[in-house]
Structures are given as structure tokens and as C-alpha cells.
């Protein structure tokens, strides 16, 4: 690990000042759950250039959870454990709490943050290997595509050269809740719908999220009382401490026994959470009691998707059936 200087930021504004002052050699660090791994493992290229200055957001007073009109504003530096224990979060976004419970381990959830989870880099084994070159690390081509093992490729084939999947469990959950990401930049506050955060991720050589290098993610806002039923399921090979091979987040708005609105979002399938609009369309307008979740699941993931992808398409259908059933029953 090349030596770096650690500077404590007093606030988001101060962090931006420091970023401007130190230029491309400076990076923000939250808990360091991902960043320190990349540095220690010497995944050269994943951090370009190698950071000489790390700006600590832990001291920047960005961890608050507060109401803002009818929206719940979650500070980007709130730890996963704190969010899962927070009464308002538990009441307004039970799916978020459910997802947090499946992330990593209690030790990691105690220190890692909402923002860090959403901005973590892919877990592609080629990306994470210190000696293998790839597009995301500033090189050319995709060694995962070249290797040809379907287990190491995404379920949804996309346009760009990178074929990793996004490892965050909170990303599909927040897309399903229509969450908005609050980003503070030199020209002021911007709000990006979570759905657009990872636009073009497979063609972006530097990162997955559309955030400028001089900006700070300060909060996530979720509207509450919109979706009456929520459910999240994560499929992992190991019982715990494992990244999603597939995940599904479902949110439904049911009034008078009819589904008025629905979000079905797939995780672990591509470099961005993917809304299954084909399945959503079938569900909206139907009587909740008449929905056969197996049929919806089979309608999702039509032929445009990748081949079997080592059984993961069937797994995604299973997760859709189960989350939809739970969300409707809630």
C-alpha cells in the first residue's frame, strides 16, 4: 500500500474544499470497508491514480436520520447497524432493514455505511485480482468474458465491455422504494433518482456511479407511506458473509385489494439494479388476491436476457415469486 495522508473533514462542504485543494490524488473514505481492501490487495488500476490523500467523512457529521416533509432522509455516513436499529427506518422501510440483515457480518455492519455500500466497487474476481488487467481498471477488454465461465458473468448482457455485477444489496432495495440520492457538488445540491445512479456503469471505466469526482454523496431520501408491502430476498451460496448471486426487491402499493403500483427490482444480475418492467406491468391493476406469483415470475426475464447463466435466471424467478407473495400479503 503506497503511503497516504488521512485528513478529517469537518463537514460535507469541508470535504469538497479538500477534494478541490488536493485534486485527483485525493479520495473520500467512509468506513474504508471496500477502499482499504482495494489498497491492501494492491488492485492497481482500480484506484486511478493511487490516492495520496484520503478525506475522512467519518468526522463530517453526515450520519443523521431525519424527517424532511414526508420523506425520510438517511445520512450517507449512517452505519448499516444504526439504520437497521432506527425506529423510523424500521417503520417506514422494513425492506431496507431486511436487506441490511443479510449484508456481510455484524462486525462489518457496525462500521460500514449507507453511502459506502452503494458506492462499493464490483466483486468480479478478475477486477479484484491484483495481476489481471481489465477495462474497469483502465486496461482493455474483459477477462471474464474471455474466460467464458457463465458463473462469472452477469445474467443480463449489456452493451459495454464490463460484465461485472453490482454487489450492493441496498441498491435494488432503494430503487424499489423510488429513493433519491442527494449529492452535494461545487455548484450546489443535486438529486438523482436511485434508478439513474448507475447509468452506463458497464461503459464507465472509472466507476459505476454517475458522481463527479469533486462531489460528495450526502444522503438518501425515501418517500414513506407509498408502498404498503415490501419484501427483499437475497440468494447466496454460503449461508452468510456472501455477496448476492441474485437478489430481488419488491414494493407494492395496494388499496382496496388492488395493486395500484409495483416495483420489482433485480440485484446481482447486472452492473445496475434492473427493474423488471414486464413483470410490473402484469401486476399493476390486478386484484392482489388473484395474483399467481409463479406466473408473474415466469413472465419476468423474457428471452432478451442472457442464457441460463448457471441457473440464476431460475433463481431470480424463484425470488420474484417469493418476494411478491410476501409483499402482497403484508
Amino acid at each position: 500500500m503506497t503511503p497516504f495522508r488521512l485528513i478529517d473533514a469537518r463537514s460535507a462542504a469541508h470535504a469538497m474544499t479538500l477534494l478541490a485543494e488536493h485534486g485527483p490524488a485525493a479520495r473520500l473514505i467512509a468506513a474504508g470497508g471496500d477502499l482499504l481492501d482495494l489498497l491492501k490487495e494492491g488492485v492497481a488500476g482500480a484506484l486511478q491514480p493511487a490516492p495520496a490523500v484520503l478525506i475522512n467523512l467519518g468526522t463530517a457529521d453526515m450520519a443523521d436520520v431525519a424527517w424532511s416533509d414526508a420523506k425520510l432522509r438517511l445520512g450517507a455516513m449512517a452505519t448499516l447497524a444504526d439504520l437497521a436499529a432506527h425506529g423510523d427506518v424500521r417503520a417506514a422501510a422494513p425492506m431496507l432493514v431486511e436487506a441490511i440483515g443479510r449484508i456481510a457480518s455484524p462486525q462489518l455492519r457496525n462500521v460500514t455505511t449507507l453511502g459506502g455500500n452503494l458506492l462499493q466497487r464490483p466483486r468480479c474476481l478478475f477486477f479484484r485480482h491484483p495481476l489481471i488487467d481489465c477495462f474497469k481498471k483502465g486496461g482493455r477488454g474483459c477477462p471474464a468474458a474471455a474466460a467464458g465461465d457463465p458463473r462469472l458473468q452477469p445474467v443480463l448482457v449489456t452493451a459495454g465491455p464490463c460484465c461485472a455485477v453490482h454487489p450492493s444489496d441496498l441498491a435494488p432495495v432503494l430503487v424499489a422504494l423510488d429513493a433519491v440520492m442527494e449529492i452535494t457538488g461545487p455548484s450546489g445540491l443535486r438529486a438523482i433518482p436511485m434508478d439513474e445512479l448507475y447509468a452506463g456503469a458497464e461503459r464507465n471505466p472509472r466507476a459505476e456511479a454517475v458522481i463527479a469526482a469533486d462531489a460528495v454523496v450526502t444522503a438518501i431520501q425515501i418517500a414513506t407511506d407509498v408502498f404498503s408491502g415490501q419484501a427483499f430476498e437475497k440468494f447466496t451460496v454460503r449461508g452468510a458473509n456472501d455477496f448476492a448471486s441474485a437478489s430481488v426487491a419488491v414494493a407494492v402499493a395496494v388499496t382496496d385489494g388492488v395493486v395500484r403500483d409495483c416495483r420489482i427490482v433485480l440485484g446481482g444480475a447486472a452492473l445496475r439494479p434492473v427493474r423488471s418492467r414486464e413483470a410490473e406491468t402484469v401486476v399493476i391493476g390486478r386484484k392482489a388476491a388473484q395474483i399467481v406469483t409463479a406466473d408473474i415470475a415466469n413472465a419476468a426475464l423474457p428471452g432478451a436476457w442472457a442464457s441460463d447463466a448457471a441457473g440464476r435466471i431460475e433463481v431470480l424467478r424463484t425470488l420474484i415469486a417469493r418476494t411478491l407473495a410476501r409483499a402482497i400479503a403484508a
Partner: protein
Amino acid sequence: MRATTPPAPWPSDRPLRVVGHRAVRASALAKVTGRARFASDIAPVGMLHAILLRARIPRGRVLRIDTAAAAMVPGVVRIVGPFDFPQPPGPLYPGSRSRPAIDAEVRFAGEEIGAVVAQTSAAALNAARLVRVDYEAHPAVLTMDDALAPDAPILGGESNIVSGVDTLACGDIDVGIAAADVVIEARYATAAQHHNALEPHGCVAAWQDDVLTLWDSNQGCHGIRERLAMVLGLPHNQVRVVSDYVGGGFGGKIHLKPYHVIAAQLARLTGRPVRLFMDRREEFIASHQRAPTARSIRLGATRDGRLTFIDQVVRGQAGPTDLFARNAAGAANGMRLHGCTNMRAEIRRVHTNTPPPIPFRGPTAAEDIFCLEQAIDEMAHALDLDPLEFRRRNIATVEPFARLPYAGNGLLACYERGAAAFGWRWRPPRRCGERDVVRGIGVGAVAYDGTLFEESHAEVAVRANGRIEVRVGLTEIGCGADTIFAQIAAEALDVPLRLIDTHFGDTHTTPRSIDSTNHSRTTTVVGPAVRAAAQALRRLLLEHGARLLQAAPDQVVQHGAAIAQRDDAGIAITFGEIAAATGGVVVGAGERERPPDGVFQAMFGAHFVEVEVDTGTGRVRVLRAVCAHDAGRVVNPLLAESQVHGGFLQGMGMALLEEPLVDPISGHLLNATMWAYRTPGFADLPASIRFVDGSVPDRSNSLGVKGLGEPPLIAAGAAIANAIFNATGARVRSYPITPDKVMAALAERSRA
């Protein structure tokens, strides 16, 4: 053979006083309080830190090493490569094609090509990343299929098959085929498996004049000392190996490795102690691995359930040289498991540019029996028989190669006691609905060759303070050698266990009890030597005691931890007092007894498993397991349970989760990390793993002991695979049985 005549065998019809009882592991408190010092903890004054440079291509040569940038890192002391490394006088391994510890020839990605030594480990790591190496890359073969392709590059000799085809046979295979009413045939495969011991490989090497002290994480201090002395061209007494506590081995730490030699030479070169330990990513390379295998098995049986033949064609991945190739594949233990007259196995060990296979708990036997016990299960189903009943009808009485009776075969006891404890009630597999979560049960057995005899020396001593010390020259790797030899000595000497300490792990202060702990043989090899040493000590104590009590030798007896007058127990002298009066310590030395003729020692076992399969995702959970084992005589049931728990979980990992992924283009191991190479975690544990003692009397030594380290892993895999079949009607013949394979098998079943 310098063995002694065996003493009277311990009784098998009644309990012993100390042996056979639960005793807390002697090192437990030291380990959980952090007082135990591992080689990783050693830090002599002036110690330098070394890190290895490893090849980035799978095959070829190092042309040039550019250390200019690396040498500028503050704190760097020395950088060596293949052209300037001080090679020791002897070869790393005996044999003609041995490679030096650091060499320009590269035979697998990650092979050692140099080292950096620095004041701190951070400096060493930073410098290592700045070293530039130019290679001449040659075409490599990374899998057995690659190696056997018609235009494959040949790694050595005439073909990529090591030493031709190895055939094991007994009886007449054609007679067996003719006698079969039902024949089945199928192909099976096992993947490589990494040891992942918690403590990585490594050592601290320090020279004092011409004497080397090596604090090392190994499985046998005497074995490492002897091999290292030979390589360095030194007499044994100039190499001292200290391995007080070791954080796991599982077979990976039996052998001398390049890092031992490199650390010793760097310490000599720099004149300072040198610490050389692997990080976790390197540990996947340094430990090598269990070899991947592939086999086809054909079985025949009569309609009433008697096996008539077993015929196998087996391939194993052997790495780039002949060294360790025997670890690539085997079939012998599978052939010992059931009574079948006509058996044959053809084994091909295939050269590849991958790290050579080294033993991993049940080496070649786990791979073999994970597959064979599935084939046996398939035959039971073809015959419409309960798989347990089919096995009961085929118990072996004679070892097929030596043609000798087993000194003890507890397989039937394991079947019966295990089935009873499990509540085994078999029913055929049922069809499951879409996305159902279903349950099933399975059974799998194990046979594993034991060790009848090896030379072993032990000492039992009494000190002036009354403490009794067992001295055994071995490394304790977690199996319990720190505890059970004290129990054996306490039993033999007829004193309380609490009076006894065990000293091990230092070649300078222990007799040579064993070269290395492996093959589940430490208890059976060393135990009788400890008993002999305890008896020798007692003889000395009686002799000295008589003299000190001024009595005739036949007028004194042992009375607790003292020698007393036969007719007046009040006139006595304690062991400690005897020691004080005779120079401070009395030492009894013993050797391993002679083995009996005409028997073969083997361990047996049977696992019964219940699983739950989610047919919507392919995920398998092991719900519970009952593991019955014949160990001859269980010395310590508490430690036996630990062995069974650990072995079962490693077998479960091999069966369901663990698989190294190699990039077919670069040859690099892709998942050399704990998060990406999946070993079982807490959320994967079954609700219970229950050890059932299926031991029957064994006459291979006077203690009646065999071993228990490896069979619990070997039996686990097929029991789990067979339970998956029972739950779903879908069979997966390729390990690890990951969810994607279950989904594929289910899809195939519904198409059929």
C-alpha cells in the same frame, strides 16, 4: 527393526481409568488466553521481514529481474532472484528432477522466483510490488483436459501422464462382470480443495554461529529438521526446529517447502533473524491443494445385493513434476471398504502447470470415496434396496491387496449404532413440486488404511518437584497430541492425569517420536512408545525407590505417585523425592513395540446425513449428521468429537462449497481470498453433528488404538450427495455440489 515386544494388551471389556474419558485439551487455556506462542508470534531482536516474489506466468523462464525501483524503497535490505540467490548444497527434494528453492524456470503461476528482505513488512511489500520481471512465456496446460489434448505441450518425459498407467487389481474382473445381474456405470468428479489453515505457512529463521533455529508452522518438527539439515548440508544437531503451537495444517504443512530454505539462506545472508510468512492470498498458493480428479466407475451386483465387481478409470491432476504426483489420485481405500472379490482401478496422474498436489486430510481417499459411495448408492437404487441394507450385505473381512484379515473392522458396528442414533428410516426419492423445499437422508461409509508399525521413541520423566513429563518429538496441530499422550502415560503409570505435563514441538529437547503428523497415525505410532516409556520409568522408580528405602526389590510396590514398602505403606518415598535424590530427574525411555503378524490395520466409519434442498434456488442445507467411527479405542471422547466436527465440516465444504477458480488465460487463481473461496461459516452449520463410537477391539497394537483424524472428512461427502438425491430424485456427480449444479440436475430430471 528395533521395536520392542508388546506388553499385555489393554482390556477391551471394561473401562480404563484415564484413557477413554473426557479430558479438557491441555493447551486450551493457553490458546484462548493468547499465552500460546505460535511461530507467527516470534520476533527476536533485529528481525527482518521477507516476502517472496512469485511468478506471474504459469510456464516459462525468468529472463531478467529489475530491482532498481524496489531497492529505493526505504528500509529494503536485500532483494534476491534466481540469478543471485545463494543456493544451498542439497536439493530441495530427493530425486532427479528437483528444482532449487528459487529458480528461473517457472512451472506454475505463483512459483517462487525471488525474495525481498526489509526492516518492516510494509517496506518489503511495497518493494516487492516495484520489482519488474521479464519472462519468456511458454504455452501452459492448466487442466487435465488441456494436458491430454492431442496437440498439448508435453511438460516432461514422453507424455503428460506421469510414469504411465498405475493399475490396482484383485480377483478377476471378467469373472465379476459375468456374474453380475445388474451393472451400472457413471462418471464423477471432484474439485481441488485448499487447506485454509487459520495460521498461514511461515517461519522465523535465526543463525547463531553455525546453528540454525527455525520457529516454524509445520506438522512435524523432526521431519522438517531432518529434511532441512540435508538441504543445508548440516548435521541434525545444527538445526533446531521449534513448533510449539500450530494454527492448523490439514496436510499442507507436512513437507519441507521452498520458504524454509529461502528463509534460512536469507538469514545467513543478512546475518539477522528473518521472518517469512505468507499472506492469505499467497497461502492459497503456498499450501498447494488437494488435486482435482475425474473418474468413471462401473459396478456389478447380483439381484440379491452382493457386489460382484468394481471397475474404475481414474484421472488426477498431478502438477508439473513427478514429485507429489502420487497425491493426484487413488483408489485403494475405496477398494478396502466393501467386500468385493473382483476389483480393478486404472489410475492416470496427469501433468499440468498448477501447484503440485499435496496431502489434504484423507488425500486421494476423500476424492475416491466421495465418488465410490455415490456409485454404491446408485447400485442400491438399481436393486431397489435400502442403501444401508445393501452396504450391510457387503462387509469386507479381508484386506484385498495384502489378503490379510483386518485387525479390527467396526464397519458393521458403525452402521448399526449410527443408524440407531440417527433414526434411519429410508424411503425412495419422491418427485418434488416446482420450487419446493424438500428433505432427504443419505448414508456414506469410509475405510482408511492405518499404520501397523513405524519406529518411534518417547520419554516419560519425573522431576524433583513431582511433576511427570511426557516428552514426544512431534508437532501438535490441533488433533490433541498435547493431551492424549498424557492420558496414556497416566493410565500406564497408574497416576492421576493432573500430575502430567506434555512437552513437544522442539527437536532439541524431545526424542524423535514421528517425522510428521499425517495419515491419522500419530496415536497408533506414538501411543505404544509412550506406554513403553512409562513402564520403563516405573521400573526405574521401583529400582531407585527400593534402593533409597533400603529394601529388597521385591519388597516394594507402587502406591499412588510413590514407592512404598510392600508390608507398610507408611514407609514410602514419592516420585519427586526419588528424582531429587538421583540427580534431579528420572527418565524412562521407550520405543514403539513390534507389530503382530498377519493383520492389516484400517479405520472404518459411516455417516448418516439429513439435508434440505430448496429446489427453487438449488441451495442445500445440511440439517443434521450422525458420524459413527471405528477408532479401535477412543482415547478422549471430547477430542474425538472435535475431530469429527471439524472433519465433517471440511468434508461438507468439499462436498458443497469449496472450489478454486483458475483463469484459463493467465493461469492465476481467481478466488484466493476468504470471501471468494467459500468455506463453511456459522450460518452453514448443521443443527447437530453427533459422534457415535463404533469402535470394536483392534489387535494391531497393545493399546488397541487406530486413528480418527481423516475418516470424518472422507465419509461426509457421499452421505450428503446421497441425501440430496433422496430429497430431489436428482443426482449431482460433480463436487462441489453448488446450487447451479443442483438446478441443472433438477432441470434435466424434469426433462426426462
